[in-house]
């Protein structure tokens, strides 16, 4: 049963696009239409794998520069096709799915670093630059951006801006929107928006912050100027275990409240801590890491050691039997693990490190030394590899990243756990902590017979999670964005403010040409 793709863009369309970008940089080939048909949205991955994707772009273009990109954007209305800006396709919310077909506007050839300014500690780079390439270039010149999403290897600057990305060191460096100094942006009508590179201004609403997070619905980012930092001179690591989540989050809160800004601050709940062996106390963690958190075989091994009887029950597939899997928590004796890393100038790092240790110990934390934290740091991108293993094992996985204030944090944790645990194997960690609140990153694993069942189950679990999170007033996404998968919840999140979004959409893209069908517009 070979896939049948709908008709591609007509020959005239291709010719017109080719006149702009050159024939080599336009494609209607099935291999391209297939590779641009999905991002990392769980349901799309499963459908793709089963050859069941329904939507494909009509045509893909790869402009070489902003000028070509503008001409493509200006041509789109004549062609009558939607335009979908595309970076690296690592989004997990279906944000780039061409649900109405259209022109995939791949910006990766706009991949240059324009300037690294030493005096101003800024970098200006084109939107298509790969995150890791950007960071490595900065490192080479003695700087860091401090932005380390686990997708850093496979995402672009433009994608970060489009979806309000967060890195693992956000407690110190902030999210991408906090780093943003200025943007260049091609509007849906082809005009170029460009904001001034100044340290601050009182010149009306900051349109940068309106475009940031618009996920392709208001046009396409072509360049951004971000603040950078000198590469940290020093790093200090430490890990603590706490008897329970509330005690541990209290320690996090107290550190941030007292002006400590750990680069990394991650708390794993009891189940998460046990499964990933963060404590380093058992042999199986040798050379492994938190990155293995979704490795099913490992869950099996761990369970086998701890409870042979339970292992038999769970043998078929742990994640497929949510209640059984979640009972593992009863076995979690190690409590929950808090990972801390400080970086920057030596004297300041030393101070922060000592102050943090004092706070954690005062609040009943057990000092586990630097090892678990170092191991996390060294393997910090590995989590992104783990999805493959889960899918390979016939299951599927997704993550839910919600955020709220400290005051409501435990309510949020309890609410989502209560809602989801009957239906999926669920773990959580608390990363991206700020003085005013924190995000919770839930990972759920479950299985389904086929793509259709998976889609239904996936949607059901999400609806429970969103209802639970919304019920305690949490924001429904901290850094993954909205895209297609959460579009239906935009109204819950924003209420009448969606009118303002629609007004801006009307002003910039009345015809809904850019990334139609997304963001609940």
């Amino acid at each position, binding site marked *: 049963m070979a896939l049948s793709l709908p008709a591609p863009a007509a020959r005239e369309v291709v010719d017109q696009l080719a006149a702009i970008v050159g024939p080599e940089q336009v494609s209607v080939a099935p291999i391209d239409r297939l590779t641009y048909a999905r991002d990392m949205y769980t349901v799309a991955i499963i459908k793709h794998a089963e050859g069941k994707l329904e939507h494909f772009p009509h045509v893909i273009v790869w402009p070489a520069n902003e000028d070509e990109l503008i001409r493509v954007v200006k041509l789109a209305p004549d062609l009558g096709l939607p335009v979908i800006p595309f970076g690296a396709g690592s989004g997990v919310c279906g944000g780039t799915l061409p649900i109405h077909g259209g022109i995939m506007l791949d910006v990766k050839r706009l991949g240059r670093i324009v300037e690294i*300014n030493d*005096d*101003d*500690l800024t970098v200006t780079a084109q939107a298509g630059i790969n995150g890791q390439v950007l960071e490595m270039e900065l490192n080479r010149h003695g700087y860091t951006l401090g932005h380390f999403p686990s997708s850093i290897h496979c995402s672009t600057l433009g994608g970060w801006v489009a979806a309000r*990305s*967060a890195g693992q060191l956000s407690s110190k460096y902030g999210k991408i*929107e906090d780093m943003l*100094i200025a943007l260049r942006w091609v509007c849906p009508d082809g*005009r*170029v*928006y*460009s*904001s*001034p*590179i*100044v*340290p*601050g*201004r*009182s*010149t*009306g*609403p*900051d*349109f940068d*912050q*309106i475009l940031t*997070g*618009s996920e392709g619905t208001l046009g396409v980012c072509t360049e951004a100027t971000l*603040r950078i*930092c000198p590469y940290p001179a020093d790093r200090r690591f430490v890990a603590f275990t706490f008897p329970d989540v509330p005690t541990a989050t209290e320690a996090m*809160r107290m550190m941030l*409240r*007292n*002006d400590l800004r750990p680069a990394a601050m991650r708390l794993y709940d009891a189940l998460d801590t046990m499964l990933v062996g963060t404590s380093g106390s058992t042999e199986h963690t040798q050379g492994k890491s938190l990155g293995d958190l979704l490795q099913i075989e490992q869950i099996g091994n761990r369970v086998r050691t701890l409870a042979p009887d339970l292992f038999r029950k769970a043998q078929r597939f742990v994640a497929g039997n949510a209640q059984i899997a979640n009972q593992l928590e009863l076995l979690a004796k190690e409590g929950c693990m808090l990972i801390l890393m400080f970086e920057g100038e030596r*004297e*300041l790092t030393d*101070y922060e490190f000592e*102050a943090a240790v004092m706070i954690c110990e005062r609040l009943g934390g057990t000092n586990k030394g630097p090892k678990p934290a170092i191991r996390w740091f060294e393997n910090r991108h590995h989590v992104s590899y783990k999805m493959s293993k889960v899918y390979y094992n016939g299951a599927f996985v997704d993550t839910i990243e919600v*955020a*709220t*204030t400290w005051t409501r944090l435990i309510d949020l944790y309890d609410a989502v756990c209560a809602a989801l645990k009957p239906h999926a194997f669920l773990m959580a960690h608390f990363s*991206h902590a*700020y003085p*005013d609140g924190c*995000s919770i990153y839930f990972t759920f694993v479950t299985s389904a017979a086929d793509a259709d069942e998976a889609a239904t189950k996936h949607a059901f679990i999400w609806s429970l999670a969103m209802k639970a999170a919304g019920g305690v*007033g949490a*924001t429904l996404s*901290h850094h993954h*964005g*909205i895209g297609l998968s959460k579009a239906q919840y*935009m109204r819950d999140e924003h209420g*009448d*403010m969606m009118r*303002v979004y629609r*007004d*801006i959409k*009307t*002003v*910039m893209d009345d015809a809904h040409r850019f990334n139609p069908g997304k963001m609940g517009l």
Partner: protein
Amino acid sequence: MTAARRRELEEIFGADRVEDTPITRRLYSQDLTALSLVDRRHSADEALPDAVVWPETVHEVSRLLRWASEGKVPVVTYGGGTSLRAATMPSTGAIVCDMKRMKRVTRMDENSMIVTAEAGILGEALQHELRLVGLTLGHFPPAFYGSTLGGFLATRSAGSLSTRYGPIEDMVISLQAVLPDGSIVKTRTAPRSATGPDFNHVFLGSQGTLGIITRASLRCRMAPATRTFAAYKFADWNDGVTAMRLMMRKGLLPAAVRYSDPPETARTFARMEDEPDGNVLVLVFEGHDRRALLEASIAAEIALSCHCTQLGEEAARHWFDHRFAEAYRRSPVLAEDGAYMEVIDTAATWSRLPTLIASLRDALAGEGRQVSLYVANASSVGASVCLTVQGHTPAGEEGKTLQAIWTAALSTIRQGGGTVSYRQGIGPWQIDALKEELGVGYDLLRDMKRQIDPNGIMNPGAFGFDRTS
């Protein structure tokens, strides 16, 4: 105002919260804009609002705007009336909506260090409430005592301790606003979000053109346990700028970094015994004892490596204790016929700052005129420059002179890569420069305004937006 209209307003606010007496109308037609202050010496010909209303709830604001939209009545939102950029200057026939009765702190989340307050609360009152629970907002603009939270938000204001605490827009977590058609909108109180555009930023800096901000939740910090002061004198002006930059680069976050040139130094420390002179850098560190001391010692090392002499902490302490003094400065000057004084602020990245400052000095220098300036609000990217221009002209010429000063300043700022306004908002005389600075961004703001406010009722004329599309 017609009796019918008044009745409609009274239905919303009750008779005692609608005023249209000549005195009230006159008082609400003024703010602290230098150009209008000097003009007023010679002419009483001003646009007066029809009435002033004082809402007490968001629902009243909503009803007001719905009413205004239906009748296409201009509405000017009014906080402390301390704008230096004519942000609340009403047009004839407008209703002034004075927010100062909406001044409650509606929620104090000590645990998350978030305060939620209504927009009409004065800066000082808000800070007082926070002080009671051991918190601080850290937002101390010069007009702190007389301005409101709503005003801070509507202009994207920055205080003198913004290096540590950030400008106001960084403190905002969520807000509530009323759109011109009366609908009430709000954003979610979460530390960060990735649920589309940040709609707070539609309203932050909008100067009353897109609706009325009625409430906001703000990030606070712990009230500092300690404060450390230091001051340094630099023989060479640029060495001091370099020292500031290097401190920021090192990751230090002094609460205040303020570097004044000789005339500004003289003004700042005029009332101090043994006042310092020359180029003086004032540093204030606050927070935890050890951290503040540590940062101060690193800062000292950097300062000394940039060729300066240590002044001891008295000067810094003096500045800190009198940090709102510059807001008082103008009155004695402006009281005198023919005298003028204007405060011009901009900001630029470090690489552009020294040249920008030098060319501003050149451009603004003039006979019988004193130009002084200080650099502050430093971040790793750059800093602000605040210039004070003071002088005398024959009576009646003040306005013309100020216009000329602004023209020179704005074109120099534009050429030097500075922003047209760092923290005061935009006055009518800055609009051309604003258009240049924002380019397409200006058109987008204008189009957004027309879409959200199709009847053009919100603060007509601000940013140069037309009354209607």
